[in-house]
C-alpha cells in the first residue's frame, strides 16, 4: 500500500490469523476468506462495488473467531452480467464444498445475493440485506457512459467509484471506515472495477423470492448511504414481513464503522433463522485450507505484483497473459487453464467477427467473455499505440496555429 493510510491494528492482527484464499474456478479468480467451524452452515458476505473480501474482517473476527460461526467473505469476481454471476457463484460454492448458505449482502452485494436467492432458492437459507436495491435501472440512467465501461482506463474507474463515497466531515468511526474502503479500492484492478460497474448497470431486477420473508433481515443505515432512500424503501416494501434491523447511523460501511451493532444484528438474525454457533469449535489458527495460498504473505505479494502490472502497462492486464499465481497449488486449475487458452486461440482467429459483435458480447456466455477480454486488450493496445500519434499531431497543429497567428 503506497497511500498514507495505515492499516488499523485489528486488521493487522486479522491478517496474521486468517489466511486469504485464492482459487481459480472456471475462468474466474476467486479471492476469499473462510474462517470458523466447517460444520456450521456458512454466512457468506458479499461486498458492494467499492468493497473487497477484507471489508468484513470485523465480522470474521467476531463471529468466526469468538462466537463460533463460519463466515466466508468474497471478492465479487470479474463477471460481466447477472447470469454469469449466478453461475460463477454456484461453481464457487461447489468448489469449496458448501451447499446451503446464509447471505449477507451490502449495496451491490445485496442485489447479487437476492438474484442468487431467486435463481437458486434451495441453496439460500436466509438473507441479510443492507443498503441495497431491487433493480439497476436508475444506476444505468445515472451512468450514460456505461457501454464504455470496459474501455475506460483504470484511474477514471477508480475516480468514479471513489466519488460515489460520500465526502465530507464524518465522525471518526465513519471516517475510518471510509479510509479503509478507499484503501481497498486502490487494490482493485481495472477489470474488477469495470466488472462491478457493469453489474450495477446491467439491466436486471429481482423477482419475488421463494424464501419466506421471516428469513430476511433488512439492515439499512438511517443516516445516509450511496443507495438512494427511494430504492431502499422499494426493497422494504417488497419484503413487508422481513425483520427491520435499522441502524441509526453508520453511513455506507456500517460493518466497519458500527461493527458491534452489525455483529449483534447478524447474530440475532442467525439465531432467529435457527443457525447455532459452535463456540467449542472456535479455532485460533487454522491448519487447513480449502485450496488457498500457503501463506498470506505470498498472497499479498501476488496482489502487489498485480497492482504494479496494472499501473505500468494496463494493456497487458488480461487473464490470458497472466497465469494465475496460485494455479500450481490447485489441482483443478490446469485443465481449466488449458481450456481457457484454447478458447482464447479460437477467438483470436475469429477476431474480425468479434469486433463487429463486441457491443452485445458482454451479455453472452463465458466464451465470448473471454473473447471480450482479449478484444479489449487489443483495443487498448491500439488506443495506446495511437495515442502518441494523436498527441504529436495535436502538438504540430497547435504549433502551426501559433506560428500562423504570429504571421498574422
Amino acid at each position: 500500500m503506497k497511500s498514507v493510510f495505515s492499516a488499523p491494528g485489528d486488521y493487522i492482527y486479522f491478517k496474521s490469523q486468517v489466511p486469504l484464499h485464492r482459487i481459480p474456478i472456471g475462468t474466474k479468480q476467486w479471492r476469499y476468506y473462510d474462517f470458523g467451524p466447517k460444520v456450521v452452515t456458512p454466512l457468506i458476505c458479499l461486498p458492494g462495488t467499492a468493497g473487497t473480501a477484507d471489508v468484513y474482517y470485523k465480522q470474521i473476527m467476531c463471529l468466526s473467531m469468538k462466537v463460533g460461526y463460519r463466515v466466508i467473505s468474497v471478492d465479487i469476481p470479474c463477471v460481466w452480467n447477472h447470469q454469469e454471476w449466478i453461475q460463477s457463484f454456484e461453481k464457487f460454492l461447489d468448489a469449496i464444498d458448501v451447499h446451503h448458505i446464509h447471505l449477507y449482502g451490502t449495496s451491490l452485494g445485496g442485489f447479487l445475493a437476492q438474484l442468487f436467492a431467486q435463481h437458486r432458492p434451495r441453496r439460500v437459507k436466509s438473507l441479510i440485506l443492507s443498503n441495497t436495491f431491487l433493480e439497476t435501472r436508475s444506476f444505468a440512467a445515472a451512468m450514460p457512459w456505461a457501454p464504455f465501461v470496459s474501455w475506460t482506463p483504470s484511474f477514471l474507474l477508480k475516480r468514479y467509484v471513489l466519488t460515489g463515497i460520500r465526502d465530507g466531515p464524518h465522525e471518526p468511526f465513519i471516517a475510518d471506515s471510509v479510509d479503509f474502503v478507499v484503501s481497498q479500492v486502490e487494490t482493485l484492478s481495472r477489470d474488477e472495477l469495470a466488472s462491478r460497474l457493469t453489474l450495477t448497470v446491467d439491466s436486471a431486477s429481482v423477482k419475488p423470492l421463494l424464501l419466506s420473508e421471516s428469513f430476511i433481515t433488512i439492515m439499512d443505515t438511517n443516516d445516509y448511504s450511496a443507495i438512494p432512500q427511494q430504492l431502499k424503501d422499494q426493497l422494504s416494501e417488497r419484503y413487508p414481513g422481513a425483520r427491520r434491523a435499522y441502524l441509526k447511523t453508520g453511513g455506507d460501511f456500517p460493518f466497519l464503522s458500527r461493527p458491534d451493532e452489525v455483529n449483534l444484528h447478524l447474530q440475532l438474525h442467525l439465531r432467529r433463522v435457527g443457525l447455532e454457533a459452535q463456540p467449542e469449535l472456535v479455532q485460533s489458527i487454522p491448519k487447513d485450507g480449502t485450496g488457498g495460498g500457503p501463506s498470506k504473505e505470498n498472497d499479498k505479494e501476488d496482489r502487489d505484483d498485480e497492482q504494479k502490472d496494472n499501473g505500468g502497462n494496463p494493456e497487458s492486464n488480461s487473464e490470458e497473459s497472466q497465469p494465475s499465481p496460485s494455479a500450481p497449488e490447485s489441482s483443478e486449475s490446469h485443465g481449466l487453464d488449458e481450456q481457457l487458452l484454447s478458447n482464447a486461440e479460437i477467438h483470436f482467429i475469429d477476431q474480425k467477427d468479434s469486433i463487429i459483435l463486441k457491443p452485445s458480447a458482454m451479455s453472452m456466455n463465458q466464451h465470448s467473455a473471454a473473447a471480450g477480454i482479449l478484444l479489449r486488450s487489443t483495443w487498448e493496445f491500439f488506443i495506446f499505440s495511437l495515442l502518441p500519434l494523436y498527441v504529436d499531431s495535436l502538438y504540430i497543429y497547435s504549433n502551426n496555429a501559433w506560428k500562423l497567428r504570429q504571421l498574422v
Partner: protein
Amino acid sequence: MASRRRMLLKVIILGDSGYVNRKFSNQYKATIGADFLTKEVQFDDRLFTLQIWDTAGQERFQSLGVAFYRGADCCVLVHDVNVMKSFDNLNNWREEFLIQASPSDPENFPFVVLGNKVDVDGGNSRVVSEKKAKAWCASKGNIPYFETSAKEGFNVDAAFECIARNALKNEPEEEM
C-alpha cells in the same frame, strides 16, 4: 429528499420483568440475552419507527456490550406491580443505564416507567401501589408513569406514543 427519511427511535427496556414479548425468553440462547422488535407509531402526521430492545430481565446488561444501548433515545424501566423487589430494583437499573449508556445529558435523559401486569389476578396480588410508583417517578425528575398489561395491550400504545414524544423532545431537529 430528507423528508422521506424515517424517524428511527431506539428504545431500551430494562427491568426484572421482561416486557415486550415474553416468548423471547424461551428463544434465548447463552450467547445474547436480548432481542428487539420494531413498531411503527404515528403522531403529529409523522411516522416513527421504534426499535425496542428488551433483555427479558435475563441478564445484567453490562455483558451485552455497547451495541445494545448505543444511541438509545429512551429507556423504559419496567417493574411487575405484583413483585416488590422488581420495584426496588428500578433505581439500580436506572443508574446502571446512565453509567453504561453515558448519555450526554443524564439529568434530562428521557425515561419512562411502566408498572406491568396490573391485570394479574384481578389486581388482588398487587403490592406496588400507583401512588408509590408515581412518588418515585416524581423524585427522579418527573418520569412519566404508565400502568400496563402486555397481555391485554392496555395502555401500551399510550406508553409508546409518550416514548416517541419524549425522545423527540430530547433531540428536536437533529438530523437522523
